[in-house]
């Protein structure tokens, strides 16, 4: 823990620096390119993000041992590294979807906001200090509130933005209260120092339990876990589709990153408390999400409820509290990123063409655009956990971790839910494949690129597991010492 | 030639199948080609059987012309065939009747090709039963023969063929289920299906290490009855006979000939080949019951035949009556084991099988001849046919007399032997059987009277005389009936040696 100047410290935040620079560039270009921004700004953002991802891989790789930097504000470890890549990928694809999206691409701020929230997420995943963490969360959230309500002409969008803001603000406040409790107990804001203090066992378990509860509330909002999920369906439906996709993937992943880090680092001694809490939340999320998804007629609402349920599956991995479970959750998030982005991407295409996101609008898609149908097939089946798509391995890992840690009931709950979920995924698939055809829908080149990247991601994660599982494992290992 | 002599049985067995397969490639509208193909294909096994008969050494014990080849090695079942005197007689009967039945079928006009193919496959099925020296193989052929017969009845049969064929099939399959289970049980216990091994070991089995919860004796008794019921249905023994009148009546003429001539023998053969050697103790215990069933078959068969007004049904019931004597002889042997009387009874039974094959085939054929012309089989509709068809009349009279057991014709010899052999062993049953014999005379004479004699029904004034082809069919049968009646030694010699060796 050295406060001295060390160039490697700046290398470690090179991606974040890159994001700030890129955000600035977009702002400037927005002013310069009045008429061309719709076409080029998105590409530049996406390209820039790809470069940043390259920089992150090349220069910002953590060493074998986690390292606290900037006075313990950040922790240079594999968790941060992997999640940063998740966010960068998510932002890249989202930026590509925004190109040719009339509501979004005409305003350059869209990309700036997107980049700033990505920056926030990136810092969330690496924060090792409560203050840093809270700042990062807010840096992430505030741009997202704006993005959700980005299309001010559209009442739904505005409503989504406000709803998101209200919910977010409230849960942030509760979380902050939890943080203050923690500081009160420990006298430090250093996450990794707190664990040792709690381990000494001088603080009343009731108080600890309460602080766990409060802290978790804020994260549960981010991951849209029950009972802090209420915002999700309305926001997803109302927000611009690419933003909804971004919210459901990158933002959720960020929430999981901090949830896992805080739980494992601050409360390693209180596993029995938070495991139960997380398991209950997982169960509730899965059941509620899946059962409500069954009834949806709008695909964005359906995907919203599905994403609540997906959070539940990922929570199974967290609830196991084991290395395998955490690795599973990370892998799941990785796969889920591509999967849900593709799903929302296809919705984006349909919405652009027919101005509707009702499931009915998908009827006959396979006769119009067989490739889009296949993409949706891959996305839906990946969500359903069917090989050879990414979701299969993620599910296998989290269910496996539940069994490994002796929580067979949780795996069985997961299975029951997988069945319910498969029902509505397949129903959508049926609509896509049945029905009369017509003229193919237009798919802009940037969307094509984004969708292909997504599909490749789904397939690669669904077939070639080893390297990505290796990352997930490292991410899990660097969070905590599992014993 | 060497190949032929070493694989004689296999050739006899599979030449019909090979011919049937080749027939698939013949054009289906060249009806005459198909008919002659089938006829010649059935003559070859007959010729080979004559060769077999010539080469067969009656004095030699055990099975001859045996062949063994790997078949279902995993279960220790092999393709093992061979003949002794009993089976040789049956093989002869089968290969003899087949060409005649096919010749009879020359009047089939519809779908000749499948008909002939089925007939040839049927021959393989029946021959296989008589030749098999492996229990599993036996069962395979036992069941396989059902399929062509089912289709022959169902496709070329009379008005009520659907009902009759289904009944025939389900009855026989149902009857075989017990046999199947018992065979499985034996296979599990002994670990082999080879009959020579089983004859040796199965009767000696004293402990069965299966979770049956029953004593060995009980298990064996149940298995015994499983065998008996399967064979009794086929014979058929009262009260398992109800499929027979329907099937025989509805089958096409040639089908009835084979059904009565050969298929029924399969059941009786099963008794001789399997039940008696495998279950000597149980057979002895239950011989009385068997004799009772046999007598019931004799008497009820005759009475039922007497009550019929359908000519074909009458002949069908007569089969039950005649086969009853076979079973009576078997029951006697079961009770007495290896005594001279029992040997005589079994000799009679085997010869009765052969004789009934001849006469029943002949009778069904002659019924078919008149049916083809009159399109009715109602005895009350006939009358005075003799005046229109004297040749037919005399042939019918001759065959009926053979069936009735007139001395000098074959039926007498065998029935006499059965009764002679059974009398000292089962006196009451034999005496009752004699009463049945009386009824036999009654129904046959009734039929003859109603068909041939009396005033001519004017409807039949234009009936054609029996044709040359038809005479060609009945002649060999008639010659044999007379031949065995006058000089039975040629065939009894073969049978007797085998019987003496076995019982």
């Amino acid at each position: 823990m050295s406060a001295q100047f060390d160039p490697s410290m700046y290398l470690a935040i090179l991606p974040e620096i890159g994001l700030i620079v890129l955000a600035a560039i977009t702002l400037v270009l927005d002013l310069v390119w009045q008429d061309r921004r719709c076409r080029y700004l998105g590409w530049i953002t996406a390209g820039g993000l790809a470069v940043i991802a390259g920089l992150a891989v090349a220069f910002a790789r953590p060493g074998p041992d986690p390292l606290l930097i900037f006075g313990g504000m950040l922790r240079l470890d594999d968790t941060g590294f992997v999640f940063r890549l998740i966010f960068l990928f998510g932002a890249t694809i989202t930026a590509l979807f925004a190109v040719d999206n009339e509501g979004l691409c005409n305003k350059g701020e869209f990309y700036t906001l997107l980049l700033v929230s990505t920056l926030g997420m990136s810092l969330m995943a690496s924060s090792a200090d409560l203050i840093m963490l809270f700042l990062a969360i807010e840096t992430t959230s505030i741009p997202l509130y704006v993005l959700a309500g980005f299309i001010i002409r559209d009442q739904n969008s505005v409503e989504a933005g406000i709803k998101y803001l209200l919910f977010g603000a409230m849960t942030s406040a509760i979380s902050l209260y939890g943080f203050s409790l923690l500081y009160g107990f420990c006298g430090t804001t250093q996450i990794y120092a707190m664990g040792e203090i709690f381990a000494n066992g001088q603080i009343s378990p009731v108080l600890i339990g309460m602080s766990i509860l409060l802290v978790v509330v804020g994260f549960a909002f981010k991951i849209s876990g029950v009972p802090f999920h209420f915002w999700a369906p309305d926001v997803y439906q109302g927000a611009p589709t690419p933003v909804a996709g971004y919210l459901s993937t990158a933002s959720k992943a960020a929430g999981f990153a901090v949830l896992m880090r805080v739980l494992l680092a601050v409360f390693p001694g209180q596993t029995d408390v938070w495991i139960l809490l997380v398991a209950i939340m997982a169960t509730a999320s899965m059941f509620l999400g899946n059962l409500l998804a069954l009834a949806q007629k709008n695909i964005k609402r359906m995907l919203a409820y599905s994403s609540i349920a997906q959070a539940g599956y990922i929570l199974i991995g967290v609830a196991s509290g084991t290395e395998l479970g955490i690795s599973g959750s990370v892998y799941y998030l990785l796969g889920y990123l591509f999967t849900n982005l593709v799903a929302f991407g296809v919705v984006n295409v349909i919405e652009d063409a027919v101005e509707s996101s009702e499931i009915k609008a998908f009827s006959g898609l396979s006769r119009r655009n067989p490739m889009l149908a296949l993409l949706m097939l891959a996305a839906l089946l990946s969500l359903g956990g069917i090989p050879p798509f990414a979701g299969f391995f993620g599910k296998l890992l989290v269910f496996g971790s539940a069994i490994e840690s002796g929580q067979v009931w949780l795996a069985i709950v997961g299975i029951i839910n997988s069945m319910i979920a498969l029902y509505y995924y397949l129903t959508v698939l049926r609509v896509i494949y049945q029905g009369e055809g017509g003229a193919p829908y237009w798919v802009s080149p940037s969307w094509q690129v984004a969708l292909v990247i997504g599909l490749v991601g789904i397939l690669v994660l669904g077939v070639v597991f080893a390297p990505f599982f290796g990352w997930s494992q490292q991410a899990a290992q660097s969070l905590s010492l599992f014993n | 030639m060497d190949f032929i002599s070493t694989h004689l049985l296999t050739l006899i067995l599979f030449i019909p199948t090979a011919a049937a397969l080749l027939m698939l490639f013949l054009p289906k509208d060249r009806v005459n080609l198909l008919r002659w193909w089938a006829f010649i294909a059935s003559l070859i096994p007959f010729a080979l059987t004559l060769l077999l008969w010539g080469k067969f050494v009656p004095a030699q014990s055990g099975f001859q012309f045996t062949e063994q080849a790997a078949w279902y090695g995993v279960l220790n079942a092999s393709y093992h065939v061979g003949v002794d005197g009993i089976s040789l007689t049956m093989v002869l009967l089968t290969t003899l009747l087949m060409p005649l039945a096919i010749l009879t079928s020359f009047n089939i006009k519809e779908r000749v090709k499948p008909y002939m193919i089925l007939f040839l496959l049927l021959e393989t099925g029946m021959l296989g039963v008589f030749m098999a020296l492996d229990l599993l193989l036996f069962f395979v052929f036992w069941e396989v023969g059902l399929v062509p017969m089912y289709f022959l009845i169902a496709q070329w049969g009379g008005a009520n063929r659907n009902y009759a064929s289904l009944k025939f099939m389900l009855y026989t399959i149902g009857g075989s289920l017990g046999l199947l289970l018992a065979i499985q049980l034996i296979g599990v216990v002994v670990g082999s299906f080879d009959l020579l091994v089983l004859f040796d070991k199965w009767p000696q089995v004293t402990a069965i290490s299966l979770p049956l919860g029953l004593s060995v004796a009980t298990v064996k008794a149940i298995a015994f009855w499983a065998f008996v019921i399967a064979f009794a249905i086929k014979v058929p023994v009262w009260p398992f006979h109800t499929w027979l009148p329907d099937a025989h009546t509805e089958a096409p003429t040639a089908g009835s000939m084979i059904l009565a001539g050969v298929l029924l023998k399969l059941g009786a053969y099963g008794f001789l080949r399997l039940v008696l050697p495998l279950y000597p103790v149980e057979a002895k215990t239950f011989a009385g019951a068997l004799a009772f069933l046999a007598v019931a078959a004799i008497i009820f068969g005759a009475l039922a035949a007497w009550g019929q007004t359908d000519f074909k049904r009458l002949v069908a019931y007569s089969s039950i009556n005649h086969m009853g004597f076979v079973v009576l002889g078997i029951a006697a042997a079961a009770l007495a084991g290896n005594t001279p009387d029992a040997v005589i009874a079994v000799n009679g039974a085997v010869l009765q099988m052969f004789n009934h094959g001849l006469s029943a085939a002949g009778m069904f054929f002659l019924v078919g001849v008149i049916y083809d012309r009159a399109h009715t089989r109602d005895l009350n509709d006939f009358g005075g046919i003799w005046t229109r068809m004297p040749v037919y009349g005399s042939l019918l009279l001759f065959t009926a007399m053979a069936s009735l057991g007139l001395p000098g014709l074959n039926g007498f010899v065998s029935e006499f032997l059965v009764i002679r052999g059974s009398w000292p062993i089962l006196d009451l049953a034999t005496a009752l059987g004699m009463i049945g014999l009386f009824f036999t005379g009654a129904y046959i004479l009734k039929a003859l009277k109603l068909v041939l004699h009396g005033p001519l029904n004017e409807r039949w004034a234009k009936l054609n005389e029996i044709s040359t082809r038809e005479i060609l069919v009945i002649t060999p049968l008639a010659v044999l009936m007379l031949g065995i009646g006058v000089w039975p030694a040629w065939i009894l010699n073969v049978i007797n040696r085998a019987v003496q060796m076995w019982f």
Partner: protein
Amino acid sequence: MQFPILSVLIFLPLITGIVLLFMPAERKTLIKSISLGTASLILLLSAIVFFSYNVAAGGYQFIEKAAWVPALGISYYVGVDGIAAPMVLLAGLVMFTGVLVSWGVDDRPREFFAFMMFLGSSVLGVFGALDLFMLFFFFELAVFPKYLMIVLWGSPKTRNYSGMKLTLYLFVGSMISLVGALAIYFGSGLRTFDMIALESAGFSLVFQRLWFPFVFLGFGILSGIFPFYSWAPDGHVAAPTAISMLLAGVEMKVGAFAALRVAFMLLPDGARYWSTAILVLATINVVYGAFIALIQTDFKYVIGFSSVSHMGLVLIGFATMNRQGLIGAGLQMFSHGVMTALFFSVVGMVYDRAHTREIAQLGGLFRKMPVAAFGFIVGGLVSMGMPGFSGFIAEFPIFMGVWQAAPVVAVIAILGVIITAAYILLVVRRVFFGELPEGLSNIGDVTIKDKISTVLLAAIMIAVGIFPSLMAPMISSGVDHILALFGGA
């Protein structure tokens, strides 16, 4: 380095399927030709696997192994034993004939044949898998082709309901098994999915008894075990012809095969503990399935329920846990696969021409389509367990096995045989013989491709029926290994 024949078998259809999806949709004949070419190649390769399997040597052959996820002990590990080799052949046969009888598919043939290829890859992958993870991977690969093929090309009235029912049933089944498989993985302490290694993991008795039902039941659902069979008739009836063939002919075997491979072979003591329960359920399958088949009025439902009945015999064979029973079960899997493929293909041929499957509205079709009728009759005889056909060869040892395990089951289950005989004979007579209804007087004969398919399948059943040594010794060699596991554990 030997030729990686199993990998080629598994990935050839997968790659063909992907290639097909990228072909122009209007080149229908080309798409069909490519599919037929691939299917022929699959048949050829599967026949090579079958015939070049060294029975004398036994064990797992054609082994290939590659690391997949070493951190978790997952590898790409394929090989076949004496039980799997006939299954591979079965899959090849049904794929080939399935493509042949699907030549008439005119609605989106590209997707149809591509999905069919995926399904083929899935089943071949399961039969070849020696790695538990890989087995599940390929097992679940079949989910979406199954579902989509039923709801897209199935019979319009019931396809949505039946397709969903079938898919969910099977998915739940596989997930339940997955839980059991994961328990095996963690419980073994070996951290490997390698099934050969897991065979000798030495699980405790309590563990085996606890987890066997999970693994078995999950796969058992796919093989139609009572009372979880109802997806099978519904699904098979609603599916298009080729998929009915693949589902009933191969997929149900996949379930049974996996139940044997994972549940019985990895948890033998558990199997012994639960074998009585399985016997009871499977016996209900046999008898009850046959009774229900007897009262169906829809041609295809008769066959659908007959599968339930016959698969019961396979499970009975497994549950005997002795040599004869297992040999019989292996043979029955093959025999029933070929038989039911033949059945469904003929049902499809009839339906395509008559446009009805109501038995009451059919009749006299022998004259119109003799080859199809012949095929159906052969299938019927196999189904009845008639000697001389493969069904007998399979059922006989099963019953021999049952005698040693539970004689009363033999006596009850044999009832299924006579009921089967009844419904088969009735269906054959009502559909193919008797009067030809007015409306059907001008229907045509089946195509030459249909004939090739029918004759091929029929000929195989007869060949195996007459020469059991074509297949029985191979299965026996596989059973040797299983018995060693049963005895050694």
